[in-house]
């Protein structure tokens, strides 16, 4: 499955919810499925700034050239959002991640979270994921 296909599947899943409560309940559930980050990575180095709640994100570059993310947050909605991102981007190469657009977040009605004033840091999370991908790509090229 490509990232695009995964995003389409998420959009379809979200289209089934007709009210915000179902959508947020689902996000809260997603948060619980989040691949747990190792305690040692819950440090200032892995903390994403710009969030009212704390978010830690760690990336591992495997020998197969693919990037795997783990994360955690102390707020459950934020956890659900970061879980969604990780579900989408974990297990792909740096190039695949960098060549993906983020329209799907708008389509599932999470656009409000993209505004910088929301201060939940969705924007910072996406930037951090892309930053990791860029860094790993540079390493590959060297």
């Amino acid at each position, binding site marked *: 499955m490509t990232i695009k296909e995964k995003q389409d599947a998420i959009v379809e899943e979200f289209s089934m919810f007709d009210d*915000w*409560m179902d959508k*947020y*309940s689902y996000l*809260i559930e997603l948060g619980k499925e989040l691949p747990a980050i190792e305690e040692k990575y819950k440090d200032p180095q892995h903390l994403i700034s710009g969030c*009212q*709640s*704390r978010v830690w994100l760690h990336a591992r570059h495997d020998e197969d050239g693919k990037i795997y993310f783990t994360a955690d947050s*102390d*707020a*459950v*909605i*934020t956890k659900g959002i970061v879980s969604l991102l990780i579900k989408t981007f974990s297990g792909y190469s740096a190039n695949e991640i960098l060549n993906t657009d983020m329209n799907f977040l708008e389509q599932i009605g999470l656009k409000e979270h993209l505004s910088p004033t929301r*201060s*939940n840091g969705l924007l910072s999370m996406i930037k951090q994921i892309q930053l990791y991908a860029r860094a790993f790509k540079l390493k590959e090229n060297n």
Partner: protein
Amino acid sequence: MSYDIQKIRADFPILRRQINGKPLIYFDNGATTQKPQQVIDCISNYYLHQNSNVHRGVHTLSQEATDLFEGAREYVRQFINAEETNEIIFTRGTTESINLLATALKPWIVKGDEILVTAMEHHSNFVPWQQLCEKRGARLKIVPINRNGELDLEFLEKMMNPYTKLLALTHVSNVLGTINPVKKIIKIAKDKGIPVLLDGAQAIAHTKVDVQDLGCDFYAFSGHKAYAPMGIGVLYGKFNWMRRLPPYQFGGEMIDEVTFEKSTFNELPFKYEAGTPNVEGALALETALRYINETGIDAIRQHEDKLLAHAETKLSAIEGVRIIGTAKQKTAALSFVVEGIHPYDVGMLLDKMGVAVRTGHHCAQPLIDFLGLPGTVRASFAMYNTKEEVDLFADALVKVVSMLK
């Protein structure tokens, strides 16, 4: 006369808005209040009929604008009962008022001096003093609070000594809602010859402020937390202080005479108002303060106290909710946490149900750290909020808690 809440609500057009399909319940008044139609009209009337630069033109419009602007200053004087009109300095808001004062006091603070602030200060009344102390080699001392969110006056008195140059404290805490016994505190400080600045940002729209009765040397507040627009605020400073202190910014309006060699500075309050001022802001501030006066500050206080008491009762009945700040004297702000749930999640879901609250550290990080919390949720009230809104908010909160548990 009874408190006519429906008439008041009708004056605030934004209260008719829907948020996420629900009627707006605006409980973020501690961050900024909404504006009545009278204030909105005042701003547009100014640009429709009077706009002109003040204090310099010989033409009619400029004269009119100047008269209105200075009239607004006089009204602010009356509102807080300052002795003289030139003790009212217009600023952008509380933050600028305090920065102005901290800059002007800089030469007066020397190595070894001490400045007292409390553990419940907003960053605006904390960081400027921290910076000043750092620059001048002075010590910033923090007056602690007890578990209820109250200051210990005996301890406070013990912290005052011959090196204490200033006590800067908040009139009302933006996080805890505590009303500090400022009159008593000022008396203690005065007896030791220590000047006092009050941060009135959270007080001005909620409780009577009489600077002569309080006896403070300086008082700072923002217009936008008192039904006026953003970008206008006031620093009240006793004439005998402000006349001796140096200017804050340099430029137009604040000068007396400028030559290539030397400049001399204008009289108070103009010495502290460099550049073209926020004229429409000052006019709208007057309109807002008149609105408060017509409603009656005591009636507003009574109404808001009732809302607060009702909200405290309602919230206390919800399992897992803990109210933060249980001082005997409180006004208009209610902070709480829900056990095991992050404040951000609570705020996010309340918004979905049309309830606007503030979450986080409320720009008082040292206080939040002191309380050992990740932040709080704060519902803060204004004159237009109703008991029914509090009920709906409590119902929404029950729903939120059940979703997140």
